[in-house]
């Protein structure tokens, strides 16, 4: 199923989405639109279903009910081949970076490129890899193995690996989780730079309020599998709802 896409239409549109694992209802009646060029932050506690949501958007999980349109295509109705074509336009940054640990940084970046773009010559591959590494500020790590990199460097290489295919949409799963405040700030700056430089629309999954405030054009607050509030950071946290206040206060204390 396909929607006509234009500037005012959302690049991601989720309607009436439900997902459960066994008796555990994870997502309940999720409705969300992400517009062209915006960074939308999905904020919520651990286990709220945030990661499940973006895994449904990229087609790693299938919804029990509801529809997910990405760049005008209904993701859960696509054939394997069409899904792969669409995935080339989406970048996914994993929580633990998911770098291929048997490959060095160069090979990690080359792999999606050479597998998806046939007949590239060595010079073009090298230039593309070096350019993307330059964008994430890790050109000097090109021959390192993932095991030799710090957590922050691994995150940046993970983001570089998704950027190599020039995605239109970026999905970040907990980009600052497990990082110190200074490295978190570097990742936040990188996310904002990617939005400007690559003109991407993004969904950022996080429970980190600093990350949400500094990267998000809009915030969607996910509590107990439902969005309780969607708006700017101020609109969401000016709310009088107890659960949102509790989340804010807990993060503030932390």
């Amino acid at each position: 199923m396909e929607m006509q896409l234009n500037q005012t239409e959302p690049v991601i549109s989720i309607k009436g989405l439900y997902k459960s694992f066994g008796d555990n209802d994870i997502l309940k009646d999720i409705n969300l639109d992400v517009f062209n060029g915006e960074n939308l932050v999905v904020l919520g506690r651990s286990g709220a279903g945030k990661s499940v949501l973006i895994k449904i958007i990229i087609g790693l999980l299938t919804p029990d009910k509801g529809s997910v349109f990405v760049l005008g295509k209904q993701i859960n109705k696509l054939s394997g081949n069409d899904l792969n074509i669409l995935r080339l336009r989406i970048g996914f940054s994993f929580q633990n970076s998911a770098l291929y640990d048997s490959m060095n940084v160069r090979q990690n970046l080359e792999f999606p490129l050479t597998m998806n773009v046939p007949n590239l010559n060595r010079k073009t591959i090298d230039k593309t890899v070096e350019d993307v590494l330059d964008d994430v500020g890790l050109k000097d790590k090109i021959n390192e193995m993932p095991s030799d990199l710090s957590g922050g460097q691994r995150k940046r290489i993970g983001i570089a690996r998704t950027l190599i295919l020039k995605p239109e949409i970026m999905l970040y799963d907990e980009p600052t989780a497990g990082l110190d405040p200074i490295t978190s700030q570097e990742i936040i700056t990188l996310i904002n730079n990617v939005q400007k430089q690559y003109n991407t629309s993004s969904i950022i999954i996080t429970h980190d309020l600093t990350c949400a405030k500094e990267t998000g054009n809009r915030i969607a607050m996910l509590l107990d599998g439902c969005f309780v509030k969607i708006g700017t950071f101020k609109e969401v946290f000016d709310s009088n709802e107890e659960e949102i206040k509790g989340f804010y206060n807990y993060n503030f204390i932390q």
Partner: protein
Amino acid sequence: MPLQLHKPYLISKTIDHYFADVSKAGFFVLRFFKEAFVPKFHLREIINQCFEIGVKSLPLITLTGFIIGIVFTKQSRPSLSEFGATSWLPSLVSIAILRTLAALVTALICAGKVGSSIGAELGSMRVTEQIEAMEVSAINPFKFLVVTRVLAATFCLPILSAYCGFVGLIGSYVSVHVLESTSIVSFFTNGFSMISFLDINASVIKSMVFGFTIGMVGCYKGYNASKGTQGVGKAANQAVVLAMFLVFIEEVVIVQMANWIRYY
């Protein structure tokens, strides 16, 4: 106490899970045949895996094959000499090694070395989301990881078995030569006189089946690993145990089939 309106399992939890596992494994094998013959073929990765499975197993196969040749000859010799039949030793050793021992020993070594390695590698990739990372990069992980490894194991096992058989016969010759100064030409002429085309064919086919089984079991266990590092260890362990078990069953079945062809 409320009435239980339906049984949670068809038969019992264990039996239901067993049949669910069998069905899942069946679909995994079917998927292999569905994807193995459709482009794109990752030839470079198949060659890489042939190197990992084949070349890196050579030292172990050489040592084991050579020792088997020596030991089997030393153990058989006293019995044959009681009947004054030591001249039959090369034939006896050749039949034992080329019909069964070479393929079986190679398969057991590879089940331990290659099966566990594939199970652990894919299991580790699964729990660290590297397989999902391939999927979201529009790369078919089944084709890249599973098909290449299973094909490499299927191609390499017959070659390794043939090599193991050759080294085993050399070991046997060394053992015979020390005591009787038999010439190598006479040993091999005598040894191969009892080996038929069917023996060679059956051994090659058997080794291919063993290779396919070892690759498939390692990949299945690794690809479906879960529950973190514990799951990786479990996948590697189960890959070895199940592969060895299946290799023995296949050995019995193929020997029966070869004998049936031989005598009827």
